[in-house]
């Protein structure tokens, strides 16, 4: 129970830090750590497939994409944010947590409990035999992200 609460707190703290930190690289690393905690929670909740996806894709591959993108950016002077912006997120975050607790509590009783799913085999078997087409979608998403980075950080030629 203590480990579970620690992991959940880790997810919340590192997610909030990812939004609040001004250094983009640190933000990306915080997001990766939050995903890592979430992946461990999935493993502990006996959802190894989604845990493996969370750690490999979100904590791993997407972080690499973020870091590469950040490496391609340049500092072009200080951009000053208004004070309202630095207050907005914490206030929104606290309000969200309160509403989330209330809504989740009221919804929990109404959701019919699902029967436990029988073991469907290994991670590879599940992915390959049950969700194969998801892989095609994942490839599409990765291609879209890579091409987006290439397009948005391209060197503009003289005739542009």
């Amino acid at each position, binding site marked *: 129970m203590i480990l579970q609460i620690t992991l959940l707190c880790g997810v919340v703290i590192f997610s909030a830090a990812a939004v609040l930190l001004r250094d983009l690289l640190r933000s990306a690393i915080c997001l990766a750590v939050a995903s890592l905690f979430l992946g461990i929670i999935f493993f502990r909740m006996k959802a190894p497939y989604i845990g493996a996806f969370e750690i490999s894709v979100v904590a791993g591959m997407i972080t690499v994409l973020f870091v590469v993108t950040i490496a391609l950016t340049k500092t072009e002077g200080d951009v000053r944010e208004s004070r309202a912006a630095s207050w907005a997120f914490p206030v929104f975050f606290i309000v969200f947590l309160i509403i989330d607790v209330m809504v989740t509590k009221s919804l929990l009783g109404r959701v019919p409990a699902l029967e436990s799913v029988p073991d469907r085999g290994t991670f590879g078997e599940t992915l390959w035999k049950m969700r194969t087409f998801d892989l095609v979608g994942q490839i*599409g998403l990765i291609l879209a992200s890579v091409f987006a980075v290439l397009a948005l950080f391209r060197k503009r030629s003289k005739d542009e």
Partner: protein
Amino acid sequence: MIFLFVALPLVVAGILPLIGKISKKVLPDILTNGVFAALLALALLQGRSLISRGPVVETFSWLGEPLSLRLMLDGFSLLMLITVTLVGFCISLYSINYMDHYGAKANFYALFLVMLAGMNGLVLVTDLFQIYLFLEVAAVASYALVAYGLGHDELEAAFKYLMLSAVASVFIILSIIILFGLTGNLDFAGVAQGLKTLDAKYLVGICAAFFIFGFGLKAALVPFHAWLPDAHPSAPAPISAALSGLLIKVSGVYALARVFLNVFGLTPALSTVLMYLGVISMVAAALLALGQRDFKRMLAYSSISQIGYIILGIGLGTPLGILGGLFHLLNHALAKSLLFLNSGSVQMATGTRNLDEMGGLGKRMPVTAATTIVGSLSIAGVPPLNGFWSKLIIIVALIEAKHWAFALIAILASVLTLWYYLLIQRRAFFGKLNERWQAVREAPFWMTTATVILALTCIGVGVFFAATIKTWIQPAADALSQGVRVTLGGLGF
């Protein structure tokens, strides 16, 4: 063979940046147009025969082991595939000349092909999570394409689009999660069966509301439309055409219609909500379009208004209403992409999108002016063009269903539409030629070719509307009209 609609664009997109290193323009032009032409030919020549005995399901195996790679083609999917590949082909032809001055053409085409794969995947899958997945594939590519010019306006519009689209995605995935929790299934048939036997109407209502919010945002229905009038005008013209002509229809209208009619089943309450959203979008966006000075912004508001017609027809839920809605979806895709491409030609020739600065351009750009008239009159619903027939069918369906007020509003909104399109004609193409535009010339060859093809298609569909409806629209309307029965009846889902 159905898998080709997803696999071919993805494979070609994957190799395009490498090919771009060898040949910056010619090979990427040929390859991309080749992909669109091949897929269009496949859809037109093989589609009808494939679905002649009902929906087709394609499954795959690997070394004798079955794979969970299941795609389904029915009348509705086929109509969407034809719309996407036909309009996409014209956009890709137009890009041969238009995208020259943007540079990194191979990269542009790669993103465009990934967007095509996303849209094609979305219309072929039979699983709620895969709808979300392919919706994201198309969306991620489109964010980058909106920002492709890298100017301040483009980047700001892309960011706004990304933020609102992310909100839409959150609502869609939340709804899918709840449905999975309730039914233990993600495929259409499993979810439809689960919902039929389930006693949790409040939670199902929440899911429906989340889907309306999510898909409504993707389709830019009023009041979820704020992103579209910024994103569509800021993008390069071919992308404006693809977003307005295709993406909002696939990720908004198609997904919404498929989920609500074939999975949830259209209830009277749901029908009423969709019809009201349709009517509000139709009128509010038409009134907002009237006040615009920016050519592309006016077209963007017009898109929201016309999506209202489509949702009104489909939301009505009668076979005739659905037929009219789907016919208008095709007609609007053709005419609106034509108009966005022409606005790009005008912007490229004059350097402005402000209608007040134009005037008399018809004398210098006769083909662009003539095709703009065809597109405008088509969307406004002037006979015998295609838009007239689809609007007429929607209005007749409303009268048949005794929704007199909605029918009257649809007619009045059509008059408003004609009004602002005549304003475009008068300000941009008619009147005395502004001296600044003495040196203006007609758009280059491939740009005019693309717009002429679209204009001729608008005229052709209008003149041969009966054959078009019988061949392409009726099978699509049948797939939707049968509602949940088609999903539960084992016809491919």
